[in-house]
């Protein structure tokens, strides 16, 4: 089975980084599906078919949100940025600029692990389970 979700050799990656990569890929796939259903719904003339597609797209909204929440829980820096951008009133790009202060201050929760490699490190992390 191809493993295109990995940018580096999977055998050299720790388990938590492999899981993180899989969830990132899942997030991408859910977003793609939402976009595909949007296109199909724009063209579909059969109301029953459109209702089914809408139901399916609603499922993808839920899957995308769950994937995102999982990733944000494991990446405090990402979460801290997201908290300053998502569900905030006002101009999105201005909120994005303001969110950059997080990179100077660090995430609020110092007990949660950082994204592997986001601390300027080589991102090696856990190697448990590796043979030899």
């Amino acid at each position, binding site marked *: 089975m191809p493993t295109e979700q990995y940018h580096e050799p999977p055998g*050299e990656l*720790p388990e938590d980084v492999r899981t993180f990569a899989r969830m990132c890929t899942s997030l991408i796939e859910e977003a793609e599906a939402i976009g595909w259903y949007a296109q199909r719904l724009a063209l579909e003339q059969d109301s029953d078919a459109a209702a089914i597609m809408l139901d399916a797209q609603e499922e993808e909204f839920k899957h995308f949100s769950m994937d995102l929440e999982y990733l944000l829980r494991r990446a405090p820096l990402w979460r801290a940025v997201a908290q300053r951008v998502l569900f905030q009133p006002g101009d999105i790009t201005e909120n994005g600029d303001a969110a950059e202060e997080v990179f100077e201050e*660090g995430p609020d929760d*110092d*007990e*949660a*692990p*950082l994204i*592997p*490699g986001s*601390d*300027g*490190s*080589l*991102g*090696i*992390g*856990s*190697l*448990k*389970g*590796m*043979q*030899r």
Partner: protein
Amino acid sequence: MNHLLRDIAPITDAGWQELEDEARRQLVASLAARKLVDFSGPRGWQHSATNLGRTETVGSAVVEGVAPVRRRVLPLVEPRVPFTLSRAELDDIARGAEDADLDDLAQAARRIALAENVAVFNGWDAAGITGITQASPHQPIGITDDLTTCPRHIARAVEVLLSSGVGGPYGLALSPEVYKSVVETTEHGGYPLFDHLRKILDGPLVWAPGVDGGVVLSLRGGDFLFECGQDIAIGYDNHDAENVELYFVESFSFRVATPEAAVALPTAAAKATRRRR
């Protein structure tokens, strides 16, 4: 820019990529402890200590009737290993050279990995770290040059752990010398010793620079706790017209939650050294 000051190093993006790739290759091969113990983090450069959940008494009360205790913590240690790279070599990497001389980087990577392994397996008294073999209450089981007896010793170590209520799977960290001998040895009938030991352990055999002989330990989790602040990174120190001075750095603490979850298997030489201590 963070504390590693990488942005002011005279190194191209391609150069950093090559340095990091080579560093990862060296480190993943040598970081034996991380293949066997629980890893948590990284929690960042500003993370300074591990919470032990314990207190100690303070000498005197500041106000009568107030019982004084304070929290005990385990400070993180910061191993740092400098290394030097020629700017001419870095220039060649930028030109696309694939055979750059990165020996000093490779040696430094192996050295910081060795420090981590030694701290975890043998302890680091000055840093307040008790190693796995130091903490183990079990009688060490000596292994000899005659590796045909090795399965018996490993099976005995597993039996000691089971008798202590410590479940598997189990892993075996082996010094490079013993690891090489195990890989080269076949038993009667040509069966590889390596595979036989894996069957007994139901877990991996790990090449572990810094280990004396071997250590059998449980991999069930919760017994050996490595807490990482800054994961291993390359930082910039200074440069001149000829060379760039860089360094490897990390911060971590290590503690043994279940001392009974490991058995040391020293070689005869290691046992003699231990007796002299």
